[in-house]
């Protein structure tokens, strides 16, 4: 084997990639093909499904019927991403530059919630944010909030849940890219007459962009597909495309619509990521890393 590879050194990278490729083929490419097939089915679970290219009409029909949920998903995911970014950047900055010996501890605290199950965390927030939970209950009883005031089952609760759950995915990449920046560059900027604000604008921020980019993707993409937060913290008015896909698949057994929606979601995310990359500029990314 080794002698064989010595004669053909070009095969080694392929060999190293093989496990990942096999994984992707088995758990991504094959299911995707199956889904594509399912999206072109017609019929019901009882009568059986039949494949036909003519069933491509499912796509526009599904898009038309669930456009509200689609748009809501995009909106909630975008707002959550911005919320995460606004909260995570100062935090990552503080951890990277000002935390001193507490750095490791703070990083640990950021990821600590991951040690409990995702579902449990969302359920916990459901209790915390409950109409008469220990957050709102006391405030209402002393009359600070009106009796009918609620957070749970509102868009705020869903966006809050999404932001909360994906927050570490924003903090960590930004922290890493900030931490990598040579502090002497900021000193050099100050030496060249840049005040603290200018130095941040011209040096720290552009060099941290790769982290902002990675963090935004890591939050936005799963947020687009989220259904747990909407299910547990939201209401019928906050249903996201993830909830529709989930119920089409598992409740209504409407496989074709669910599969078509999944495909369109995937395409939508790809398009959004592409646009984002164009706006932020891959050039910046490369130079920030290099």
């Amino acid at each position, binding site marked *: 084997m080794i002698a064989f590879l010595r004669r053909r050194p070009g095969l080694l990278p392929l060999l190293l990639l093989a496990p990942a490729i096999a994984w992707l083929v088995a758990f991504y490419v094959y299911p995707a093909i199956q889904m594509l097939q399912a999206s072109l089915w017609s019929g019901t679970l009882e009568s059986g499904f039949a494949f036909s290219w003519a069933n491509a009409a499912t796509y526009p029909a599904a898009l038309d019927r669930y456009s509200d949920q689609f748009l809501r998903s995009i909106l909630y995911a975008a707002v959550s991403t911005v919320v995460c970014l606004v909260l995570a950047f100062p935090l990552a900055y503080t951890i990277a530059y000002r935390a001193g010996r507490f750095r490791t501890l703070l990083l640990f605290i950021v990821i600590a919630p991951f040690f409990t199950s995702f579902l449990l965390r969302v359920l916990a927030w459901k209790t915390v944010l409950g109409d008469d939970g220990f957050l709102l209950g006391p405030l209402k009883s002393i009359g600070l909030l009106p009796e009918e005031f609620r957070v749970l089952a509102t868009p705020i609760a869903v966006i809050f849940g999404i932001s909360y759950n994906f927050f570490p995915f924003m903090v960590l990449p930004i922290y890493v890219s900030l931490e990598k920046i040579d502090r002497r*560059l900021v000193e050099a900027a*100050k030496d*060249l007459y840049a005040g603290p604000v200018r130095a941040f604008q011209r040096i720290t921020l552009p060099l941290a962009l790769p982290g902002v980019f990675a963090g935004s993707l890591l939050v936005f993409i799963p947020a687009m597909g989220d259904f747990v937060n909407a299910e547990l913290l939201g209401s019928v008015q906050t249903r996201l495309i993830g909830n529709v896909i989930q119920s089409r698949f598992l409740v209504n057994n409407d496989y074709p619509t669910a599969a078509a929606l999944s495909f369109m979601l995937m395409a939508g995310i790809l398009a959004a990521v592409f646009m984002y990359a164009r706006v932020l500029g891959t050039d910046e990314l490369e130079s920030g890393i290099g």
Partner: protein
Amino acid sequence: MADVDVRLVNVTKKFGDQTAVDGITLDVSDGEFFTLLGPSGCGKTTTLRMIGGFEQPTSGLIELKGEDVTFLPAHERDVNTVFQSYALFPHLTIFENVAFGLRRSGIKGDEVTSRVGEALELVQLIGYEKRKPAQLSGGQAQRVALARALVNRPAVLLLDEPLGALDLKLRKQMGIELKRIQREVSITFIYVTHDQEEAMTMSDRIAVMNKGHYEQLAGPETLYERPTTRFVASFVGASNLLEGKIGSDGESWTVTLPSGDVVRAPKSLGDIGTGGAIGVRPEKLTLLEPGQESKGNRLDGTVVDTSYLGVLTQYTVEGAGGLRLLVSEQNVDRTTRSDTWRPGERVALTWKPEHGFVVGDSKSA
């Protein structure tokens, strides 16, 4: 004497209970190439950083062109720095790196272009404007760092071991070029290095630093010919220090070595104090056959080591009482004496008393 550009008065910097800089007072004149020379940890970089505004002194005063800048932040000082690792902005082109300071001081348009062009021409990097720092060699990056600082025409340019990361040959080349550039722009340079050769070849004046203060401040020639402390004598070039009982004999200091031999040096060379010594540089010593006559100081010994270095040969000679002396001899005599001295040969070492130097009481005790 030209105007004073930078003045430090009793500047002290403490980090916790560590004293990095211990009461430095010095004046740097306009247009001077001034060097802070010393081993790592002597406080030279901290001193430079305080002049640049990156550190605040614990006590003392820093003046720039007569103005107190002790607590003025770095970006408000008319001083620019060439950093040890260059600290070029990786996301900006060479043009934008050099233009950074100009843009911050509100200069716009054509003037930026022409001044960046001038600066890049000065460091011979025309044509590199569009590259990124990662596409440059070490020497080129160093030049960009220099251009980025000089383009602002600061009153004072600070250089923190700017040649440290380059290989030996490039270092020598850049050293010569730095000196040329300094003459051309006639800006005051304050240069920090641990390399005494670099310091000697470029500087107008050198402050030799040790443990937070400077031991001697003088021109390169004076530092070499007349070092006044043991530390300077051994840090700048090689020295033989002759320690023993100090005495006085008319116009000369005398040191009686443990072996009983007496060496002399004229009192005009400096004050030997109560704990000083007489020193002599290796190349001032002449080796003679034991029988040959000589004037001046003379010690007998045996050659214990010979190393041939091309332009010169270095000998270690052991005298009475285990005293070891370093001697270097130019290799011009090979025509008259066909061979170098060999280990084991008995020799006499001689030198003129006025060729020695006198170090005083140790300051860093």
